[in-house]
């Protein structure tokens, strides 16, 4: 199965850049996106699904990027796992469907990934939802 990304120290590459082509191309793109983000504040999404990876390349790339301090899980139409890589500002967003099959795997270069943000329209309805819950509480709710 398209296994989750585990940061196994045993597979952590030595310092320096990876020496395989597929990863180099991606990392160059990430570097470019980071500079762009610093300069303009615009975020970038890179789709990792349609890359000509050799078997094991993706796992190596994820291991190489490593894990940062933040990890999150979103439950919407199946789970989405989000984690910051060891490189600040470089996030991985792993969208899965209800059967935990990967839909897409993206690198998002941003302050934090879009999927974590509360949708503005939901916030507009938030007060109403809160009121409803308070009403329910008054009726002997939670």
């Amino acid at each position, binding site marked *: *199965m398209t296994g989750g990304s585990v940061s196994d120290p045993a597979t952590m590459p030595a310092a320096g850049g990876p020496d395989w082509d597929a990863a180099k191309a991606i990392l160059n793109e990430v570097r470019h996106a980071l500079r762009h983000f610093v300069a303009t504040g615009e975020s970038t999404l890179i789709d990792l699904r349609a890359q000509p990876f*050799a*078997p*094991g390349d993706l796992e190596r790339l994820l291991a190489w990027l490593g894990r940062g301090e933040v990890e999150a899980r979103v439950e919407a139409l199946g789970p989405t796992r989000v984690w910051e890589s060891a490189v600040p500002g470089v996030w991985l967003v792993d969208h899965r469907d209800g*059967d935990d*099959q990967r839909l897409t795997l993206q690198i998002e270069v941003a302050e934090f990934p879009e999927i974590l943000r509360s949708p503005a329209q939901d916030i507009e309805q938030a007060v109403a939802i809160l009121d409803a819950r308070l009403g329910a509480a008054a009726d002997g709710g939670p």
Partner: protein
Amino acid sequence: MTERVVVDPITRIEGHLRIEAELSGDTIIGAYSSGTMVRGIETILRGRDPRDAWAFTQRICGVCTLVHGIAAVRAVEDALGYEIPANAQLIRNLMIGAQFVHDHVMHFYHLHALDWVDIVSALQADPKQTSALAQSISDYPKSSPGYFADVQRRLKGFVEGGQLGIFANGYWGHPAYRLPAEANLMAVAHYLEALAWQRDAARLLTIFGGKNPHPNFVVGGVTSPIDLDSDSALNAKRLAQVRTIIDGMQTFVDQVYLPDTLAIAGFYKDWAERGEGLGNFLCYGDLPAGAALDPATFLFPRGVILDRDLSRLHDVDLHADDEIQEFIAHSWYDYSAGNDQGLHPYDGETNLSYDARGGVAPPYRQLDVAQGYSWLKSPRWKGRSVEVGPLARVLMLYASGHEQTRGLVDSALARLDLPVEALFSTLGRTAARTLETKVIADALDGWYDALIGNVRAGELATFNDRLWEPATWPREARGAGFMEAPRGALGHWIVIEDGRIANYQAVVPSTWNAGPRDPDGVPGAYEAALQDNTQLVDAQQPLEILRTIHSFDPCIACAVHLSDPHTGESIDIRVT
């Protein structure tokens, strides 16, 4: 010509099948099965490299997507006396087994179930009771009331959305549907569940063959090498993935497919009395235990059962000219030495002859069944019309004393409170498919463990290059490649001359089952199964015909694949 009930297209099958049935009152007294599409793959094969044949024959069918590939490489290997490594045979077994499990489950839920399950009725079900029902027959975890309520809501939204799509115009509400609403809802949920499950099951063929449908094969072994130190070979990670897929298959068979079959069968016990027909069954046997294709080691035994006599298994010889023969008395072909003789596949010839042999110019309402009425031929074993497929195999296993099969059959019959004779029926055929799936799903363990054992022992070979180059071949060679496909006994016969294919013939399960009458007027298995035992509640909604025909799991593109270059009707209008 008498007016007949015509069902064309028979849907939820592979290929193009037409059934015409003559009624006396509400009973079918004559049935005619017709394959209505021809491509000519055997003609196309002539003159080509025998090592390429698997790819061509595999495209005979994308449903049983592996079987013609395996039969073709085996035919070439048989012709050349080409031995393959033990690992290659084990990997092929795993692929064949996975194909069986995948194909049978998909057949049950996606091709056959709607004959027994009323989708619309599922809207009335109570999710709580459905949950209770599901939990009473299995420990499958997806059985909460919430789960079934979700499925129902989705189905409801779909029906109310106004576009019924694939479910439009089904015979919903037909009196022959007898499941309670809750059983219908459970089956609908499992219909969707099985669609998701099969995507994972298909991955086993992808690991070994690169893709599914139409995985890759190679004469002399398999394409994937084994190397635990390589990313780009079968390594520990890949083999672990295979194990996970096998586990997923076994879980679904044990917890969903098997319990569902028995539960649904309980409501349709009257179908244990009709829909058999011939009483003769043939099985080439398959799934060897060792490196060689030795019938003594097969999981499925080889043999023929005649007249329901389980006490005697007759032996089969694929090479003998007087055993397996094909007739064309009612097919749209010509034989050069007369249309009433039978030809062994090595000498098989087939000239497309639609108009001259009674084909009616389209558009037509009825076939001329006095003359040719099908693109299928009529294969016969020693002149006998036989049935092939899961029922034949389960009977063979049962008759030869296979312990697990005996246990499964006996307990299923006991559960349903039916006698052994119930096997000879539409219901028996459908149940046999489920039971053999269980046998094969369990057998996957043995092949997997043997493969792992070999790898541990350092035995890594997956391909034998000794006879790869055509320069090493004899000038002339002929061979028979056989296998048990999900739908039954499959044989490919190849004649090689100067490193090229001189003749190629495939006699496939659905040709045995769906073929037309022979020169003596003896019907094929489909025809016999429908005749004289089936009543139609409503001739406008011939659901009963679908039940019996679908119980065979027709695969018609497989069954029709023949033609010959020496025909006036063949025209080449290739655009180049």
